[in-house]
C-alpha cells in the first residue's frame, strides 16, 4: 500500500503553468465553499485534487470551467488573466471536463452523447455512420464494448461514467479534468483509464484528477493540491508524501478506524438458523439468470463481480425495484412476490441505489426531508413524524455520519456528492430495516467517511441486521462480508464463506469461469495489457 | 343547381354546418332546424364547428365529398369562405346561408341568405331609447347615461349591434354611452362587468346589452347593489329568449329586440325551392319583432325557447 511509484520531478521552473488559479473564493449564501484557494496546473502532469467530502473540490473545478462565477481571485490561463463564463467557453479554450455526477443526456444514444457539439459532418449534415464508428473506436480504447447506437439510459451508471470519460478524452485538449471518474469503476476499467491518462500526459496534457481512492492517487498522480473545509492546505509532490501524512492533511487529524474491521466482523452460523431472506431461481429476462441466495440474520453477504456482471440487477430484484420474471422470494417463512419496492419495505428491506442522482436524491427537498422520506412513506401520509422525533432523528444521523454542512434545512442538491450519499444511507438506517441492500454505498465517499460507514455496517450487522453489500472496490467487499457471492455474465458463479478469500482468489474465480464464450466481457480479457 | 340527386330517391340530403352551441339562442336554432328536417323528411347531415371556421370549412368539404344535395351553414365569420364555396359550386351543390352573411366577391357562390340583420337590431334598440329618452333619465340629471355590455370582441353581432345602436342614439345628444366593455355574451361576464360599472359610476341610467344573457347578468349585479332593475336602471337587450322574456314580463327589463332563432321552416322551404329550380330572393330577412313589457306578458305563454 505504501509503495509510491517513481515520479518524474515536476517541471517547475522550466515550464510555466497552463492554468493558475489564485486566491479563489466562492460563497453560496452563508456557506463559504472556497476561501482563497490556489491551484497550479503544469502541462504533462497528473494533478490530484484531494480533500474530504465537501472540501470544495468540485466547486473549484466548476469555478475554473465557468459553471460558477468567481467572487474573488483570478484565473490565469497561459500567462493571461482570463475567466470563463460558461462551460462552453472553457471547452473552446481546450479544457475538457468530466463533472462529478454523470452529466450526459439519457435520451440520446451513446455515440451522440460522446459527439454532441462536434459531430462529424458530411455535406453539412451529421454523418451518423462516421459518428458511430468514431464513438466505437474511442470506447474500445477504454475497453468498453457496447453498441454506440444504444441509448444511454439502457446502461448502468458505470458504463455511463465511462462514456462521459470517453467524451472528454476524445477531444484535443490542453487540460483534462476528471472529477471522481473512478467512483463506480472496477480495477480493470480504472487501469484502462490510467493507460489513456498516461498517454495523454506524455503528450503534454495537464490532467486534474479527483478520487477518494488513495491507491489510485499514488499510482497515477504526480503532484497534488489538498483542500480542507474550502481552504487550501498545501501543494505537495505525491512521491514525497506518505499516506499517513496525506490523510492527516486532508482530515486534519489522525485516522484511527482504517484497518480495524476484519478483526471484529461478527460470525453467524449460517448452517443452523432460518434465513431472513431466501431467493430461489430469481431471474429476469435480459438482465439476470436464475439465481439462488440466502441471507441470515446478522450476516453481511458481499457480492463481487466485474462491471455489468449483474450485481445491481440482483439487488434490484431483491428489493422489488424491478419485478422478477422467475423465481420466488421467502422472507423468514413467508413467500412473497415483490411487485414494487413497497412490498419489500413492508418486509423491512432497505435498498440504497448506486445511481444516487437519478434514484436517490430528491434535490429540491431539505436534508431532513430526504432523510425521513422512506420512514414517512412507510408510515403513510396520515401519520406525520412528530416534530420532536424528526429533530431527534435528523440531528442524530447528521452527527453519526458527520454530514456537512450539519444543517437539516439545507437543500439536498447543494450538498457535495459524498454528503448526499451519507444522507441517503441515513434515509434507510432510520427505517430500522432487518435487511439492508447497499449498492455501491461508498461511491464517492471520502476515506474517513468510508471507514465510518464500514464500521457502521459492521456494527449494525453485529446487532442482527442482515446486509447485502455491493461495491466495485473488491477489498472493501472482502473486508466487510461474512460470505461472498461471485457473479459473472449476469449469473452467480460461486459462493464462499469469506474467511480466507483474497482479492486474487476472487479474480481467479471470475477468470476461471471465463470460457472463451463470444459474449465474454472484453474488460476481463484485456486486463493484463498495461 | 339542378337537384338531380333528390329526384333519384325523392329525399333531400342536406348538409348543415352549425357554428357551435355557444348560447341558448344557438341551441334553439339547431333544434328548430333538426326538428323541421325530421318533420319534412329531409335527410340532415349535421356538424357543429365548435366556433371554429376551419372546422366548418372541413365539414362543408366533407359534405361535398359525400355529394349531398344542398349545403346550408351559419358562417362562423363573414369572410374566408370563397374557396370552399367555389368547390361546392364546381360540384354543383347549391348553398344556403343562414343567420349570418358571408362576404364574397362572387354572389353566385350561394343561392340565398336567410337571417337577421344585426345592424337593424341595434338600430331598433337605439330607436326605442331615443323615443323613451325622457323616461330613461332615471336620476333626472338631464343626461341619459348608457353603459353598454358588448358581445365577444370581434364577433359580427357585437360589431353590428353596437354600430346600429350608436347610429340611432346620435340623434339625441342627451344620450351618451359612458362606458362599454365586453361581457362575452355570457351572464357571468355581464354580471362582473356590470358590478364594476356600478362601483365606479352611480349615474347610470340605462344598460344596453348585446344579448339577453348579459342583460340577465346585469340584473343580478344591479339587485346586489341594492337597486331595482327596470326602474332605477333601465335595461335594453336583444334576442328575446325565454328567460329574457320572463324578466321583461316581470319588469326587470324594459325592452327586448327579437332575434329569431327558429329558422328551420324557412330554411327547408328555401332548400326545396332551390332544388326545384325556382327563383329565390338573394336575401330573406327573418320575421322578427320587438317587445316591451306589456307585449312580453302577452307573448310569454307561447314562447318555446
Amino acid at each position, binding site marked *: 500500500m505504501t509503495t509510491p511509484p517513481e515520479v518524474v520531478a515536476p517541471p517547475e521552473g522550466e515550464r510555466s503553468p497552463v492554468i493558475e488559479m489564485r486566491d479563489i473564493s466562492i460563497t453560496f449564501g452563508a456557506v463559504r465553499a472556497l476561501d482563497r484557494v490556489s491551484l497550479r496546473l503544469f502541462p504533462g502532469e497528473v494533478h490530484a485534487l484531494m480533500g474530504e467530502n465537501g472540501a470544495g473540490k468540485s466547486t473549484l473545478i466548476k469555478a475554473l470551467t465557468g459553471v460558477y462565477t468567481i467572487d474573488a481571485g483570478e484565473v490565469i490561463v497561459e500567462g493571461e488573466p482570463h475567466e470563463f463564463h460558461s462551460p462552453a467557453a472553457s471547452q473552446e479554450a481546450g479544457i475538457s471536463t468530466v463533472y462529478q455526477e454523470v*452529466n450526459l443526456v439519457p435520451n440520446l444514444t451513446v455515440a451522440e452523447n460522446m459527439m454532441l457539439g462536434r459531430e462529424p459532418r458530411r455535406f453539412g449534415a451529421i454523418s451518423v455512420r462516421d459518428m458511430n464508428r468514431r464513438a466505437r473506436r474511442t470506447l474500445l480504447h477504454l475497453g468498453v464494448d457496447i453498441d454506440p447506437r444504444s441509448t444511454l439510459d439502457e446502461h448502468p451508471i458505470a458504463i455511463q461514467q465511462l462514456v462521459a470519460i470517453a467524451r472528454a478524452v476524445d477531444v484535443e485538449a490542453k487540460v483534462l479534468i476528471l472529477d471522481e471518474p473512478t467512483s463506480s469503476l472496477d480495477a480493470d476499467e480504472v487501469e484502462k483509464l490510467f493507460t489513456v491518462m498516461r498517454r495523454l500526459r506524455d503528450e503534454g496534457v495537464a490532467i486534474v484528477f479527483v478520487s477518494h481512492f488513495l491507491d489510485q492517487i499514488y499510482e497515477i498522480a504526480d503532484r497534488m493540491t489538498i483542500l480542507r473545509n474550502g481552504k487550501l492546505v498545501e501543494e505537495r509532490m505525491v512521491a514525497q508524501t506518505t499516506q499517513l501524512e496525506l490523510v492527516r492533511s486532508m482530515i486534519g487529524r489522525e485516522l484511527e478506524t482504517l484497518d480495524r474491521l476484519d478483526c471484529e466482523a461478527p460470525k453467524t452460523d449460517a448452517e443452523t438458523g432460518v434465513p431472513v431472506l431466501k431467493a430461489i431461481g430469481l431471474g429476469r429476462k435480459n438482465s439476470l439468470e436464475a439465481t439462488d441466495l440466502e441471507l441470515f440474520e446478522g450476516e453481511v453477504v458481499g457480492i463481487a463481480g466485474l462491471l455489468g456482471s449483474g450485481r445491481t440487477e440482483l439487488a434490484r430484484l431483491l*428489493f422489488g425495484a424491478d419485478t422478477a420474471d422467475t423465481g420466488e422470494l421467502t422472507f423468514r417463512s413467508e413467500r412473497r412476490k415483490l411487485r*414494487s419496492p413497497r412490498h419489500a419495505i413492508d418486509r423491512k428491506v432497505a435498498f440504497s441505489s448506486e445511481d444516487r442522482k*437519478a434514484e436517490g436524491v430528491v434535490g429540491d427537498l431539505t436534508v431532513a426531508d430526504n432523510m425521513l422520506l422512506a420512514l414517512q412513506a412507510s408510515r403513510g401520509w396520515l401519520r406525520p413524524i412528530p416534530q420532536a422525533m424528526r429533530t431527534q432523528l435528523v440531528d442524530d444521523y447528521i452527527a453519526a455520519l458527520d454530514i456537512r454542512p450539519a444543517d437539516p434545512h439545507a437543500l439536498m442538491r447543494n450538498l457535495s456528492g459524498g454528503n448526499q450519499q451519507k444522507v441517503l444511507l441515513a434515509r434507510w438506517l432510520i427505517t430500522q430495516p432487518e435487511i439492508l441492500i447497499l449498492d455501491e454505498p461508498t461511491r464517492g465517499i471520502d476515506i474517513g467517511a468510508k471507514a465510518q460507514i464500514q464500521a457502521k455496517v459492521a456494527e449494525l450487522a453485529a446487532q442482527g441486521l442482515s446486509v447485502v453489500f455491493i461495491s466495485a472496490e473488491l477489498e472493501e467487499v472482502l473486508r466487510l462480508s461474512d460470505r461472498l457471492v461471485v457473479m459473472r455474465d449476469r449469473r452467480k458463479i460461486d459462493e464462499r464463506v469469506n474467511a480466507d478469500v483474497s482479492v486474487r482468489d476472487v479474480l481467479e474465480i471470475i477468470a476461471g469461469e471465463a470460457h472463451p464464450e463470444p459474449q465474454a466481457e472484453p474488460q476481463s480479457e484485456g486486463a493484463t495489457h498495461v | 343547381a339542378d337537384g338531380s340527386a333528390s329526384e333519384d330517391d325523392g329525399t333531400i340530403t342536406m348538409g348543415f354546418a352549425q357554428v*357551435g352551441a355557444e*348560447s341558448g339562442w344557438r341551441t334553439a336554432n339547431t333544434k328548430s332546424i333538426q326538428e323541421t328536417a325530421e318533420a319534412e323528411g329531409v335527410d340532415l347531415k349535421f356538424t357543429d364547428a365548435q366556433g371554429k371556421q376551419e372546422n366548418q370549412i372541413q365539414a362543408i368539404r366533407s359534405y361535398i365529398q359525400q355529394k349531398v344535395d344542398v349545403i346550408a351553414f351559419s358562417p362562423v365569420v363573414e369572410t374566408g369562405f370563397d374557396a370552399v364555396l367555389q368547390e361546392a359550386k364546381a360540384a354543383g351543390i347549391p348553398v344556403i346561408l343562414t343567420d349570418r352573411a358571408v362576404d364574397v366577391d362572387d354572389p353566385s357562390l350561394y343561392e340565398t341568405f336567410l337571417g337577421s340583420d344585426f345592424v337593424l337590431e341595434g338600430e331598433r334598440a337605439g330607436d326605442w331609447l331615443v323615443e323613451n329618452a325622457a323616461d330613461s333619465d332615471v336620476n333626472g340629471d338631464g343626461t341619459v347615461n348608457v353603459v353598454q355590455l358588448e358581445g365577444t370582441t370581434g364577433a359580427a353581432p357585437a360589431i353590428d349591434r353596437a354600430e346600429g345602436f350608436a347610429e340611432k342614439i346620435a340623434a339625441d345628444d342627451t344620450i351618451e354611452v359612458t362606458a362599454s*366593455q*365586453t361581457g362575452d355574451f355570457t351572464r357571468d361576464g355581464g354580471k362582473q362587468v356590470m358590478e364594476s360599472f356600478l362601483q365606479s359610476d352611480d349615474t347610470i341610467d340605462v344598460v344596453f346589452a348585446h344579448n339577453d344573457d348579459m342583460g340577465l347578468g346585469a340584473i343580478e349585479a344591479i339587485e346586489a347593489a341594492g337597486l331595482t332593475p327596470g326602474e332605477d336602471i333601465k335595461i335594453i337587450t336583444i334576442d328575446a329568449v325565454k328567460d329574457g322574456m320572463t324578466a321583461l314580463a316581470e319588469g326587470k327589463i324594459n325592452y327586448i329586440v327579437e332575434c329569431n332563432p327558429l329558422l328551420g321552416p324557412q330554411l327547408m322551404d328555401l332548400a326545396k325551392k332551390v332544388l326545384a329550380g325556382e327563383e329565390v330572393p338573394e336575401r330573406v330577412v327573418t320575421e322578427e319583432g320587438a317587445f316591451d313589457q306589456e307585449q312580453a306578458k302577452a307573448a310569454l305563454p307561447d314562447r318555446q325557447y
Partner: protein
Amino acid sequence: MSESSSRAARLLRHPLLWPVLALVVLLLVNVVVNPNFLNVRMQDGHLYGNVIDIMRNSAPVMLVALGMTLVIATRGIDLSVGAIAAIAAAVACTRIIGAGDEAALTTAVMAMTYAVVVCVALGAWNGFLVSVLGIQPIIATLILMVAGRGISMAITDGQITTVNNPFFSDLASGFVLTLPLAFLIAIAVLAFTAVLTRRTALGMLIESVGINPEASRLAGVRSRTIIWTVYAFSGFCAGLAGLVIAANTNSVNANSLGLWIELDAILAVVIGGTSLAGGRFSLMGTFIGALFIATLARTIPNIGIPSDLNYLFKAVVVIAVCLVQSPKARASLRVRRTGPPTSGPAPTPAPAPAPAKAGISS
C-alpha cells in the same frame, strides 16, 4: 439594529414578497384612476365595494387553482377543470329543477353534494389515466376537457338552465359575517388544503414525487395513490368552483361556464411562485395569485380599457409580473443601475444546475 436589518433581509427573500407587491401595485393603479376604488360601505347588512367584489369573484379561480397547485406539484397539469366545473353546475342545476321543491334547502344541499361527488369521481378518472395507465397528464385531462363539455351539454340538453333556489344562490351571492360566502368557502378550502398537506406528510410526499418520481418510488412512496388523490382533489375543487359560478348567475350555460378557467388557474399558481416543473408548491402564493387575477379582471372595466385592448393590457401585466418575479431580471436591472459589478457587492453565483432532469422548465 442588526436584528432589524436581518429581518428586512429575510423579508426581501420571502417568496411571497413579489406576488404581494404585484397585487399592491395593481390595486394602486386602480386607486390612482378611481380614488374611491378601495371604498367599502355597509349595505343590506353586509359589506359592499370593489374589494368585496374582488374577493367574491376570485373564489372560483382560487378554488380551481388550489387543486391545480397540488396537481402541478406532482409534475402534472389538469386541463379538464373548466369542463368539470361545467358538469358540476349542470348536475346541480338539473337536480334542483328536477326536485319536488325547487326552493328548499335540502334540495340545494342534495344537489350540490351530488354534483361534488360526481366531480370527485371525474377527478379520480383523470388520476386513473395518469397514474395507472401512465398517460401524459396534459393529454389525459384533455380528453375530459373535450368530452366534459359535451357531457355537461347533454345533461342540460344544451339549454341555459335557470334555477330558483335562494340557498343555492347564496353560495355565490350570500354573505356571512358581512363577507361574501363564496370567498369564505375558498378560504375554508385553502385552510383545509393547507392542513391536509402541511399538517400531514402529504405535502412533502407530493413534492418528493414531483421532484424525483423514481427516487420516491424506491423510497417506498405510494406515488400512484398520491397522484390519484391529487387529481381527485382537483376534481373536487373544480366542482365547487363550478357550483359557485353557476350560483353567481343562478344558471348554467354548459358551453361557456368555466371556459379557459384552467389558464387563469395555472396563471394564478405560477404567479404564486409554484414551478410548473413540479416539486415545491406554495398555497399562500396561489391564494395571492388568484386574488391578483380577480383584481386584474376588475381593473379592466375600472380603468376603462376598451374591449379591444383587453388582451394587450393583460399581456403587459403578465410580462411585468413575471419580470418582477424573476431573480435574473431583477439582477440585470440592478447591475444596470449600479454600474459594472466590479465595484458592487460580490455577485451571486450562477444557479447550480438542477440535479434531476429538468421538466417543463427549470
